């Protein structure tokens, strides 16, 4: 006969006690396993959702492109930002050099312009005049649909506010600085300087301003960059062609907004995950501590119930260490049973709940994805250990029982 036989027989005899203790452990383990497994599923789902959202934002904002301005090197940016156009000019040939270069890969569209704030004596007001040439095609690339059409000579495009105040419409005519123009387009309201801007042919603008062959900006539109430092990448390509005669600044904030939107989505996903993790980090120890206390109390009750047996075992010669082993072995078995039972329940429930999260069966996570080997190993090793710890004091109390006192009481 071995001590293990005594342990097994006692468990078989007092099934309810064993079952209660095992179930207590199982509930705690199930909670821990369930939460961790659900968190894993949640994390995978969230990561997928964030990735999908990020992709959506990328696609939606892709058309906004990443737009930059190529400006004369000597231009004072502070003045540029104050006036919204550059006083300094640069040769119009810059744009042709860029268009013919094979090294410029990131820029999709080039649009040279000459912009000035001018007085419109016929209307007695100041306006922005922009001479444009349309999109300059890249010599070595397949032709693309231009982002902006050129303004034919003798025609003029008019911003919304000017058109409204001067009652202008396509095909109507106007006089600007003594020259007659037919209105080509009237732009819808944009809520910026465009609303008081007129666009004419670049050559005509150069002639009016006495700046033949000069421009003061090149709009580089819809740039696609592989690196994070997009501006530096574009600047590097432009500098390779034009040297240090120009400077590159970002035209619009849409690219930043796009990047920020994607970052926010990613951060929001991480923050939600962290909140759930923090909740789990508090919840799981509390549940386990509760289970340890309950198992300890059940062990204590078991020791009290078994006092006569302890007395007789001690009387027939069993050492205190043997009594200790009997109780600790039972605690370990309670732990193993609770761990296995709890893991199965926790994992099963978590898988079931997870499958409810995603109604689309194709998006349901497989068992292999949710299964965490380290978690199983931890549960199987740690739970019996915790159970033994919970039963330690009651077992010590059992081992310290005085057989004479017990037998006298009995």
């Amino acid at each position, binding site marked *: 006969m071995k001590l293990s036989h005594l342990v097994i027989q006692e468990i078989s005899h007092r099934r309810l006690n064993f079952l209660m203790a095992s179930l207590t452990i199982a509930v705690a383990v199930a909670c821990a396993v369930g939460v961790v497994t659900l968190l894993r599923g949640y994390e995978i789902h969230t990561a997928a959702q964030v990735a999908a959202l990020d992709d959506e934002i990328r696609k939606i904002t892709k058309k906004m492109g990443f737009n930059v301005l190529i400006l004369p090197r000597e231009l004072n940016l502070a003045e540029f930002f104050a006036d919204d156009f550059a006083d300094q000019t640069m040769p119009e040939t810059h744009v042709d050099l860029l268009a013919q270069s094979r090294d410029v890969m990131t820029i999709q569209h080039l649009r040279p312009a000459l912009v000035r704030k001018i007085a419109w004596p016929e209307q007695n007001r100041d306006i922005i005049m922009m001479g444009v040439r349309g999109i300059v095609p890249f010599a070595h690339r397949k032709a693309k649909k231009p982002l902006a059409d050129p303004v034919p000579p003798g025609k003029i495009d008019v911003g919304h506010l000017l058109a409204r105040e001067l009652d202008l419409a396509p095909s109507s005519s106007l006089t600007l600085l003594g020259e007659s123009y037919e209105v080509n387009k009237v732009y819808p309201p944009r809520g910026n300087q465009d609303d008081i801007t007129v666009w004419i042919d670049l050559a005509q603008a150069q002639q009016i301003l006495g700046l033949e062959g000069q421009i003061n900006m090149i709009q580089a539109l819809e740039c696609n960059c592989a690196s994070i430092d997009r501006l530096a990448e574009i600047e590097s390509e432009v500098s390779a062609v034009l040297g240090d005669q120009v400077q590159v600044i970002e035209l619009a904030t849409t690219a930043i907004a796009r990047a920020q939107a994607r970052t926010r989505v990613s951060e929001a996903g991480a923050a939600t995950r962290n909140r759930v993790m923090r909740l789990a980090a508090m919840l799981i120890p509390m549940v386990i501590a509760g289970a340890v206390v309950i198992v300890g109390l059940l062990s204590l009750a078991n020791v009290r119930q078994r006092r006569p047996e302890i*007395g007789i075992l001690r009387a027939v010669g069993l050492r205190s260490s043997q009594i200790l082993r009997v109780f600790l072995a039972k605690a370990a078995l309670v732990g193993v049973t609770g761990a296995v039972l709890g893991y199965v329940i926790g994992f099963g429930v978590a898988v079931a709940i997870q499958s409810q999260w995603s109604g689309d069966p194709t998006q349901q996570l497989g068992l292999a994805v949710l299964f965490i080997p380290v978690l199983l190993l931890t549960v199987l090793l740690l739970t019996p250990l915790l159970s033994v710890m919970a039963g330690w004091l009651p077992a010590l109390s059992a081992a310290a029982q005085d057989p004479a006192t017990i*037998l006298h009481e009995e």
Partner: protein
Amino acid sequence: MALKLENVSKTYTRNGLDVLALQEGSCSIEPGQFIAVCGPSGCGKSTLLQVSGGLMRPDAGTVTLDDQDIYALSADERAGFRGASLGFVFQQFHLVPYLNVLENVLVASLALPAKSPASQRDARDRGLALIDRFGLRDRAFHRAAQLSTGERQRVALARALLNEPRFILADEPTGNLDEANGEEVLRHLAECAEQGTGVLLVTHDARAAEVASRVVEMEAGSIRDEAMPWGVA
């Protein structure tokens, strides 16, 4: 080879009052002797038995086996000594409720060191032989609750004898038995003594005198008379 008590005293505190259970008592028992300790309830008989068996440390005096003071041993060494040298029989039988008859007998073998000659190897054989000897063969796989009181006491006796102890310490073993079963238990104890096991029997049972080789009478914690057979005056 004798189990000796010399000037042993033991005082309990019960309900705040000191109760002198054993007063400088001395006696000894040799293997093969059958000593019956008789006396009224509360005279200290059970205390004498428990002190003799290493279960209760006396306040004064010594208990020796082969000149070894058993209370000089640690608690676990004393447990080992009990397992190897002593067998206990109690009035309430004290069987383990979830074990069957054979297992209850074999539980005593857990006290033996693993490499003891009388170790686990042949414990089962000895257990079965004892069950046969006490007429419990057909009850071997019944639990305690399924046995009669007489059968339970015979199981307790078999358990006490499993490790082939040198002494049996029996505390009122016939107290809960009818006349026939009581006589049978006494007869078995007498057989043990005849086979060389010392028997120290604490009892009210007048029939013990008929089987005991010596009767010791106790009163108020004192061992009064070691020589006079009890009941023969």
